[in-house]
């Protein structure tokens, strides 16, 4: 393997918080992959495994028991929802981050490379998107498109690429003055070739770090939208949706404030740990790639 990457890997594994983040992430990955084994869907909803099974007809939440280790909320098994919700979290995070980062890279690099009017127009469009408050925009968009997880994801992509575009634009503006870019032009490398082979490899690391940080926060955003009732349909395994069920029970019962703690703690913990994992990894990557910290 390459020396440079070996050195980076070594540095990564020397960083305890990075390793912790990675362990958490691996744990979530395993849970997501083995969800059908950890929480096997009942025969009745085999074809819709993402729907949390209804396990009781009593509308009150039930505390954790042997059968339902995380308890029951809104008649549905929380454990099942948390396990299968891991898949939902990954899906939202990866797809939204991936697509919005690609859009951002495309717009930002074109804007920076060509400059002039193209830059001006693209950046003003970016400004317009930035000036719209995200939650309101997402609510409006989901109202237009209809509710649903995919609609939420579309809203998050449409209003999520601007940060990447600005970041990569700034970096490319700096890098395009380097002489190796001029040298590539003198050789006759095409514009896409210069951007892909010369500019992006030298500017993309901050974007990757930002993307990994965003991966976590996107899950929170999706949860907020689910909590507001815009996201997943009733009964869909999604951490935000499970929290949404807890809305009525959050204040506890009369005289017992913490009576229904399990309706919030289990999905909440899953979400916090998921976000933490991505943030720790992003932080560690930044420490590794930041040349100012390089010895």
């Amino acid at each position, binding site marked *: 393997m390459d020396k440079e990457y070996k050195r980076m890997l070594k540095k990564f594994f020397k960083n305890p918080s990075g390793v912790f983040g990675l362990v958490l992430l691996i744990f979530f990955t395993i849970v997501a992959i083995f969800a059908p084994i950890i929480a096997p869907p009942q025969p009745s909803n085999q074809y819709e495994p993402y729907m949390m099974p209804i396990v009781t007809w009593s509308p009150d939440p039930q505390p954790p028991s042997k059968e339902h280790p995380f308890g029951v909320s809104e008649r549905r098994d929380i454990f099942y929802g948390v396990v299968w919700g891991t898949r939902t979290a990954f899906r939202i995070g990866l797809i939204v981050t991936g697509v919005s980062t690609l859009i951002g890279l495309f717009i930002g690099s074109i804007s920076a490379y060509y400059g002039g009017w193209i830059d001006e127009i693209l950046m003003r469009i970016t400004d317009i998107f930035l000036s719209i408050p995200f939650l309101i925009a997402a609510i409006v968009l989901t109202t237009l498109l209809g509710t649903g997880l995919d609609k939420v994801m579309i809203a998050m992509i449409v209003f999520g690429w601007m940060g990447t575009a600005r970041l990569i634009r700034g970096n490319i503006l700096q890098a395009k003055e380097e002489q190796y870019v001029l040298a590539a032009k*003198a*050789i*006759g490398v095409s514009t896409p070739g210069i951007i892909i082979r010369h500019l992006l490899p030298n500017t993309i690391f901050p974007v990757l770090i930002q993307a990994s940080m965003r991966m976590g926060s996107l899950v929170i955003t999706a949860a907020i939208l689910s909590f507001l009732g815009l996201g997943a349909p009733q009964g869909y395994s999604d951490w935000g949706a499970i929290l949404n069920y807890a809305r009525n029970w959050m204040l506890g019962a009369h005289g017992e404030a913490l009576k229904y703690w399990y309706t919030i703690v289990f999905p909440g913990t899953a979400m916090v740990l998921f976000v933490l994992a991505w943030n720790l990894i992003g932080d560690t990557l930044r420490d590794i790639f930041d040349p100012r910290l390089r010895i």
Partner: protein
Amino acid sequence: MSQTIQKNTPMLSVRNLVKHFPIRAGIFKRIVAWVKAVDGVDFDIYEGETLGLVGESGCGKTTIGMTLLGLYPPTDGSVYFNGEDITPYLLPGWKVRSYLKRTYIEKFKQLNHDEMEELPDELKHYAEVYFNDHKGDAGRFIRSFMENRKEKQKALRRKMQIVFQDPYSSLNPRMRIGNIIGEAVDVHRLASSKEERQKMVADILQKVGLYPEYAMRYPHEFSGGQRQRIGIARALILNPKLVVADEAVSALDVSIRSQILNLMEDLQKEFQLTYLFISHDLSVIKHISDRVAVMYLGKIVEIAPKKKLFERPLHPYTVSLMSAIPIPDPEHKKKRVILKGDVPSPINPPSGCRFHPRCPIAREICSREEPPLQEVEEGQKVACFFAGEMS
């Protein structure tokens, strides 16, 4: 060696080359001023020679090099390579039509067929193309330049290459040496197989004095001198005719500098290269050049064979430059010509002769009229009304 070749047609001719950079300000990015980096420059480079281009920093030397390679589009003027007008390939596509109209078509339209003989050589060639090949059809004439533009630009890139100043920023830190050099092979499809490409890279690495194994390494593993060798290899793998060396040794250690200069001289013999050697360092220029052009504030003030220029400079600016060369002899008392003031801003250059505010022999006419670059002695052109007065 250049003396005999010089009588031939030049390999590269530059006529009235102008490069102005706009300064933009305000929300609407209005152009508020122009930096006149290169402001009407004429020179020729003959096959096999080394033309040194010398001047202080900010005088436009590098801009000339970049413009010749098409890295900056020229604002005005023409560049001919082996007699062919290559300006349309240096300009962005949307400017080609207006360039051709301005330079050729408008002149040809007012022309009677029998007047063709009186045209200057450069125009005559294209007048023939215009009237004979294209039957005076402007559209066809323009299209002939626009067809296969990409291929023609690529072909031009194979003929002209550049070696950059900074060995640290001129190599992509994330690419292996083999790919940095081999990229040119890929772009121009010079190799039919991976093995052939590898062999080409290995060959050129050996030619510039490096081991072929270095192809697997990254730029940060090399010293400044080695990096400059890699930069030279990258330029030479396309087998160019003309190499623009833009301050190619300025960033190097003195001890390494002579190594690289000698390498460049050896390569010049081996590959029959022609150099445009840009430098601010007179000793380097003196070492490597056959002829030398001296620039001041976007203009060439003197151009002459090296020997003549160093023995008897005719332009007052050249005289003062020469007097600044240190002579390692404590007994030698030399008359130093120290110029007053600073180089004026190229945004707003002085009227008339650009050198007149600092010139020790300036007279009234100098601030009024711009002296043309005229041949004063054989092979020695000077842009001064009082050439030779100070030497």
